[in-house]
C-alpha cells in the first residue's frame, strides 16, 4: 500500500468521467468514486487529453524517451513511442486524426493516428512545455520563453515576451484569444495570429503552471498553491482560492465545476 499520495500531473474530463494522472497510473472517477485505474504498470504520466470517447496520455521516461497511449474505456488502443525525452503535453488535432506532443527534447511531435508515423516540428530552443489547438492553429510554449504559432508544418510566428518558461496555454472558447502562463509569474493574453499582446495579468506569487479558459474566466494554477479566477476583460483577479501550499499542477473545467490537482496529490473541486 502506498502510504502517501502521488503528485497529480494532469486532469481531464470527458463529460462523464474525470481522469486524474499520477505517476503509477490514471485514476478514473465516476460519480465521485474511482471506478478503475488505467496503466498501473509504473510509468510517468505528464499530460492528458480527451476527445470523443478517447483519452490520450503522454509521458515516457525523463532523459530517454517519450510515450503516448490512447485509451477507450479500459482498453488500450494504441501505444506510440516518440521523442528522446519525456512528453509534457498532448493535444488532439481539430479533426481528431493526429495528436500533437510537446517534448522535452525541444520538438513538437505530430503523430498520424492512422499510420502511426511521427513528424517533428523543430524551432524551440528549449523543452516544449505547453500546447493549445484551435481550428488549424497549433500554439506551443516552452522553456526557451517563447510562444510559437504553427499552421500545418510551418512556423507562422514566434512571440518572445515572457521572462521565464511558458508552462501553459489556453485558447478562449471562441478561439480569438490565447492565454499563456509562465514562470515569470504572469498570465498574458494574446491575439495569436498577429502576435499582439492585449493583456498582462500580474499578482501571482509563483509560476503559472496551468491554465483553463471557461465561459467567464481565465483560471490559473500556480506554484504558490493558489488557483485564481481572472476576468479576462479587465484582468482583475476575481477570486483567489487558497490551496494547501503545494504547487498546483493541473486544472480541469468539468461542466459547471472546476477541479485542481496539486503536487501533494490532493484533488479538489473548487467551489
Amino acid at each position: 500500500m502506498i502510504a502517501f499520495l502521488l503528485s497529480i500531473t494532469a486532469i481531464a474530463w470527458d463529460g462523464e468521467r474525470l481522469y486524474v494522472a499520477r505517476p503509477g497510473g490514471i485514476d478514473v472517477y465516476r460519480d465521485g468514486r474511482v471506478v478503475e485505474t488505467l496503466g498501473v504498470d509504473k510509468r510517468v504520466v505528464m499530460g492528458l487529453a480527451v476527445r470523443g470517447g478517447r483519452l490520450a496520455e503522454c509521458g515516457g521516461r525523463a532523459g530517454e524517451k517519450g510515450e503516448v497511449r490512447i485509451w477507450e474505456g479500459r482498453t488500450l488502443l494504441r501505444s506510440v513511442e516518440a521523442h528522446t525525452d519525456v512528453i509534457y503535453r498532448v493535444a488532439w488535432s481539430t479533426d481528431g486524426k493526429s495528436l500533437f506532443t510537446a517534448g522535452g527534447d525541444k520538438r513538437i511531435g505530430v503523430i498520424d493516428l492512422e499510420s502511426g508515423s511521427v513528424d517533428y516540428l523543430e524551432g524551440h530552443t528549449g523543452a516544449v512545455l505547453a500546447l493549445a489547438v484551435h481550428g488549424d492553429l497549433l500554439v506551443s510554449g516552452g522553456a526557451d520563453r517563447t510562444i510559437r504559432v504553427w499552421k500545418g508544418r510551418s512556423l507562422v510566428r514566434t512571440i518572445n515576451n515572457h521572462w521565464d518558461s511558458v508552462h501553459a496555454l489556453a485558447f478562449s472558447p471562441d478561439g480569438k484569444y490565447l492565454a499563456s502562463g509562465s514562470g515569470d509569474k504572469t498570465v498574458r493574453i494574446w491575439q495569436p495570429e498577429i502576435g499582439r499582446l492585449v493583456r498582462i495579468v500580474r499578482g501571482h506569487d509563483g509560476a503559472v503552471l496551468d491554465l483553463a479558459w471557461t465561459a467567464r474566466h481565465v483560471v490559473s494554477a500556480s506554484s504558490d498553491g493558489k488557483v485564481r479566477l481572472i476576468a479576462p476583460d479587465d484582468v482583475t483577479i476575481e477570486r483567489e482560492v487558497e490551496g494547501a501550499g503545494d504547487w498546483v499542477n493541473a486544472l480541469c473545467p468539468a461542466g459547471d465545476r472546476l477541479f485542481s490537482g496539486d503536487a501533494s496529490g490532493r484533488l479538489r473541486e473548487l467551489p
Partner: protein
Amino acid sequence: MCTRREFLVGSVFGLTLADALAWGRESRTKSCILVWLNGGPSHLDMFDLKPEAPAEIRGEFRPGKSSLDGVRVCEHLPRLGGLLDRCTLIRSVTSPEGNHDRASHYMLTGYRPTPALVYPSFSSVAAKEFGVGQALPNVIAVPTAPTYAGAGYLTAAFEPFSVNSDPSREFKVKDLESPVPENRLERRRAMLKAVDCFCTSVGEYPARDTFLEQAFGLVTSKEARAAFDLTQEDPKARGRYGPSRVGQGCLLARRLVEAGARFVTVNDDGWDTHDNSWKRLAGTFNQGKQIYAGKLPDLDLAVSALLEDLEARGLLESTLVIVMGEFGRTPKLNAIGGRDHWPRASSVLMAGGGIKRGWVVGETDAYGELPAVRPVGPEDVLRTVYHVLGIDADKEYRTTTGRPVKVLDKGQVIREALA
C-alpha cells in the same frame, strides 16, 4: 657587501629587438592587440544584424555589404565588412555575467569573479609568460587599462603600463626621457644599485626590480621612445586611422607592436548605450563634455586601418588582433531608445596570426538572444587566444599565499577559428 667595481660593470642598455625575438617561443604569433569596447558593444547593431526581426528588435540600422557570406554587418561598418574575409567572427559567445565589473573580469581573465581572488587578465598572463626582454614594456594600455585588465594575484610587476594620455589630442607619454645626459644617467643607475645594495632593512622586492629594469630600458632606447611619438608617423597614414581616440589608439598600437611590444590594449569607452543608441553609435551625441561622433564609423576606420596597415607591413601574420567587449546588448529595445546589458549573446572578432581567414563560428537565434549553434564561453575564447600566443593555459601559478591556480581551469580551444 657591494664593491665599487660591481657597479661600473653592471650597467646594461636595453636589449635590441633582435634579442627580443630570439627569446624563444613556439608560436609564430608574437604580439596581440586587444581593442576593448568598454561598456558592452551591441552585437545586434554590429556584426549580428537581424533585419527580419520585429522593429523593436532590429533597431534602426540595416545590413551593409559583407565579404563573408551569411554575416550581416551593420551598414555603418562598411570597411570592416569588406575585411571580414580576413577575420574570424565568433557570434555565439555567451556568459551569465551582466554586471560591467563582473563581466569584464570574466572576459578578460576567463574566470567568474569570486571574492576569494582577483585573477590576472590575459594581458598580464602574457606579460608574465613573455618575460621582460626588451626596451618597451611588454604590456601597454592606451590610454588606461580597463577594469580587471590587471595582474590580479600575479602582483604589480605584471600590471599593464598605461600611457595615461589621449592619443587623439596632444599625445605625450610622460617621463620617458631622462633630464640628464647619458653619462650621468649611467652614474645614477650605478649609484641607485649601490644604495639598494647597502640597504639591510628592506628585503627582496621583485616588482620594483621589474619596473626599474623596464624604466631604464625605455629611457635608454630611442627606438622604444620613438614608438610612443605619434608625430613621427606620416600625417596621411595617421589620418587613415581617423582622428578619434580609438583610431589614434590603434595607430599607436601598431607602432608599439612594430617596435616590439607584446600586448597592447586599446581601451575604447562609450559602448554602454542604454539610451540614444542610434545617435551614439552612428550620429553625433553630446554628453556633457564628451562628444560621441559615431562609435561605429570611428571603429570602422580604426580597425580596418589597423588590419590593412599591419598586413602592408608584414606584421599581420605575427600579430593577433581581437575586438570585443564585456557583453552584448538586449535584442529588445528599451523604453529610451537603447539596449541594456545582455551577456547571453555577444560577438568577438579576431584576425591575424594563427586565426583562420574568412570564417564564422556559431550563430545566435532569430532575435540574437541566445546562441543557437556552437555556444562558447569566455574561457573558450581565451583558451584559443592562449593557444595562438603559444601560452600553456594549464600552467599552474601560485598566488601570494601559495595557493596553486591554473591559468585557465576550464574551456576548450575553438579549433575552427585556427588557421
